[in-house]
């Protein structure tokens, strides 16, 4: 490998807005992914506050029923399509080329394109709030006939167009990741020496590539039905509304894994570093990830058990089975910490938070796999609790862990540890206060997506608790933003490797130069930087 001496202090990060707008550097694009996603996280969170405020008490106090439906629809659309999926793609963008010792992604300009489609798609979707009739309001699933032209306005068309662009962004990104991972690995980085984060991005990209075009087809059929007199989903003319659900969930269930696998990857990077041990069962972990990806395509109809139109035992069995590889991962993570030497820096706190909460999201999902129990809890607040334990307790905790873990690499400065721990504690408490009572609300029979409920239904107390919890979560973001602001200016200088990392991104400067590496350490295992630090024999 040729050794080019690059100036680590190259002014790439200080050269103004123009360089950001025109960059094809995977690191800058990754950071833009993160910033853009956080903006939509705040927007989606504000809409969640509207929902929680309105539900705090029986009766309609703050918004109309019509706006309420727009609020929860756009909350979910922002959080899923413009926060969780892209922020994980953003981490992938930043760290995958570094982790495999590559100078950039395989197609840097396509990489820039897939980023810029995101804010465009997001704004298109959000512009629904400006048109008459308001934004899309049929839930993030947009089931026809409710999302059809007869019942929904222009906001739905904007939602479809926005999501199609976002989907295109995902597909381009997935192709880019796959080519990068298969073609750009540095000598010595064999497939079974890749960090788990890279493996999860690899499997996620395969899922994106197989599933997203199917979603796009559903969206285009819906658009044709709405605007050009199509009858794909119109039963009066031989169409079938359940067809939409099949096609939609064929994407949207794998999408759950698109939203959780890279998060698991982040956790699998953090735990070994802060336990000072290798990941327990590295190959078992890869096998479990591939298993989840494969099984993920055979469970979509568990979202449709109550339609009466799917073969229940098959989807029940597959849904139960997918718990097995997930359980294997959980045990491997615990075994990684077992007999380790744990340093409780903020990234590890978030990782442990992930383990404790994602466990609940796994167990309460098994209830829905038991079909008759699903008949009782489907479309109630139980399901709302379940997805938030998976996607907030799981993905969001991992995302914050990832931010605290890689912020020093991205900016050269450490985030403040005290503020980080304060944020973690407030968020952890607020999260449980908000979402745990939703299990009980669902069991007590409260359906999701209702704007109002009767005072005599017995749901008032738990709804009030959930609303208070929602504001605690919102409060937990204040120390985070304050932390980012002060640390960017005055944070402790990080150095190349502040955590004692294992993977190649810690073998270069913080932030890395535009072409990433002056030279690479010898790569003989999945922990080349660990090997370089302790010697190859120390790890065995």
């Amino acid at each position: 490998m040729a050794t080019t001496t690059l100036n680590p202090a190259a002014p790439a990060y200080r050269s103004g807005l123009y360089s950001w707008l025109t960059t094809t550097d995977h690191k800058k694009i990754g950071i833009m992914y993160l910033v853009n996603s956080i903006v939509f996280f705040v927007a989606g969170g504000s809409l969640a506050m509207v929902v929680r405020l309105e539900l705090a008490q029986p009766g309609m106090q703050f918004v109309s029923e019509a706006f309420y439906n727009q609020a929860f629809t756009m909350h979910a659309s922002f959080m899923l399509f413009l926060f969780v999926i892209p922020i994980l793609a953003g981490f992938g963008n930043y760290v995958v080329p570094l982790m495999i010792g590559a100078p950039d992604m395989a197609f840097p300009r396509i990489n820039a394109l897939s980023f810029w489609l995101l804010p465009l798609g997001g704004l298109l979707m959000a512009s629904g709030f400006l048109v008459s009739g308001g934004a899309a309001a049929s839930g993030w699933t947009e089931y026809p006939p409710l999302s059809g032209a007869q019942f929904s306005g222009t906001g739905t068309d904007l939602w479809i167009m926005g999501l199609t662009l976002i989907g295109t962004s995902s597909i381009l990104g997935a192709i880019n990741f796959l080519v990068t991972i298969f073609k750009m690995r540095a000598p010595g980085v064999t497939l079974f020496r890749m960090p788990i984060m890279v493996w999860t991005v690899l499997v996620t990209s395969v899922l994106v590539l197989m599933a997203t075009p199917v979603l796009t087809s559903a969206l285009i059929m819906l658009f044709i039905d709405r605007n050009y007199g199509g009858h794909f989903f119109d039963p009066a003319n031989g169409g079938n509304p359940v067809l939409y659900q099949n096609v939609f969930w064929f994407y949207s269930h794998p999408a759950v894994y698109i939203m959780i696998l890279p998060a698991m990857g982040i956790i699998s990077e953090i735990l070994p570093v802060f336990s000072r041990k290798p990941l327990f069962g590295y190959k078992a972990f890869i096998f479990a990830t591939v298993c989840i990806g494969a099984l993920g395509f055979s469970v979509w109809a568990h979202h449709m058990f109550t339609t009466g139109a799917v073969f229940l035992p098959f989807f029940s069995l597959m849904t139960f089975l997918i718990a097995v590889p997930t359980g294997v991962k959980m045990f491997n993570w615990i075994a990684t910490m077992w007999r380790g030497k744990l340093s409780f820096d903020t990234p590890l706190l978030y990782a442990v938070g992930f383990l404790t909460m994602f466990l609940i999201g796994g167990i309460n999902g098994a209830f829905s796999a038991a079909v008759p129990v699903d008949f009782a809890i489907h479309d109630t607040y139980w399901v709302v609790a379940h997805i938030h334990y998976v996607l907030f307790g799981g993905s969001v905790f991992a995302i914050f862990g990832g931010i605290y873990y890689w912020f020093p690499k991205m900016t050269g400065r450490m985030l403040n540890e005290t503020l980080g721990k304060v944020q973690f504690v407030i968020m952890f408490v607020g999260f449980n206060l908000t979402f745990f009572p939703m299990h009980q609300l669902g069991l007590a029979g409260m359906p999701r997506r209702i704007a109002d409920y009767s005072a005599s239904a017995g749901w008032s107390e738990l709804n009030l608790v959930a609303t208070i919890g929602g504001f605690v979560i919102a409060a937990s973001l204040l120390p985070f933003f304050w932390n980012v602001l002060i640390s960017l200016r005055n944070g402790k200088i990080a150095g190349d490797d502040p955590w004692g990392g294992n993977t190649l991104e810690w073998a270069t400067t913080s932030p890395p130069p535009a072409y990433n590496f002056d030279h690479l350490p010898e790569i003989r295992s999945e922990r080349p930087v660990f090997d370089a630090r302790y010697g190859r024999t120390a790890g065995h």
Partner: protein
Amino acid sequence: MSMPPRSRTGSGPLVAGLIIVIVVAVVVSVLAAAGITPERAWNSFFPVGGATPATDRGVATRSLYNIVFFIGATIFVIVEVMIVFTVFRYRRKPGDETLPAQTHGNNLVEVIWTAIPTAIVLFLFVLSWQTLNTVEAKAVSDVHVRAVAARFQWRFDYLDANGATIFSQALPVGPDGGLTLPVGEPVTVTLKSEDVIHAFYVPKFLFKRDAVPGRDNTFSFTVEEPGTYRGQCAELCGAYHGSMVFEVHALPKADFETWLKTQVDKANATPAPLPSGAAGPTVELTAKNVAYTANTLEAPANTAFTIHFVNADAGVPHNVEIKDSAGKSAFKGEIITGQAETTYAVPALAAGTYTFACTVHPNMTGTLTVQ
């Protein structure tokens, strides 16, 4: 392999322990202050507060729920204890720079923690499949109801053996409305939707099923306890999805038969002619998009008057009911299904403020000032 030395230094666990104690103390005292007993808290982890389900299918589902719940809770406790123990036990001592043993894995434990969860989920699958067959079993029943869902309303058609409607109940709630069923008799319900997707959901039945346009979903059950059960649409159907409620009245078999005969006779009787030439002034009122076009109405005191009511919602039933400030019904107009119009003859009312509302859609309201 020797155990690493225990670490007792640092304030981390102390702070963490303190936070846990404070949170638990706050939660317990808030619960106690709100009058929530441990028993009620425990029951909230079971469907409908631990109450016995109202149907035979519901009882089967509840047994399955209990098994899933106890297995799930056990796994939850075991794994959380493992996590918390590991986290507290294997903290790094400040200044300890040595490496722990670099364990890369162990194929035997991988096999164990793959095999045991597989066995558990297969066990749960077989159990839930059995329960599913019970819940899905179609019964031969004399009582066959077609529940017709349309935006924000339910209609219940009672069918004869040939599937023809013998009586249609347009009012989804209240003592004169709702889905009335016999106790102890197998009942078959067929769901139909006239517009978007809805779902028939009765929490106490532990059951729901979608009403999909273009598709008839049929299911059977036997109600085991007489009573009134709250039901509600569970699939988002538009702005007033949350007010798309209904009630199930379960009556002893003899009472049910009497009730049904009365209703059928009433339906077959010639409808009484509308009172013609109603006296007094006329008030105009229109219902459109499941809302009244006017929030306030005025009428003279102590004089009979008429309301000319236009229901502009195709296929949706509306009426006008006038209630006094105490909530007592002073007048209840006949429900008409749009698009249609009618004239209500309202008796003389004393001066005061009344509310008017649609009996089918309780969120459609306004104020009537009589002076």
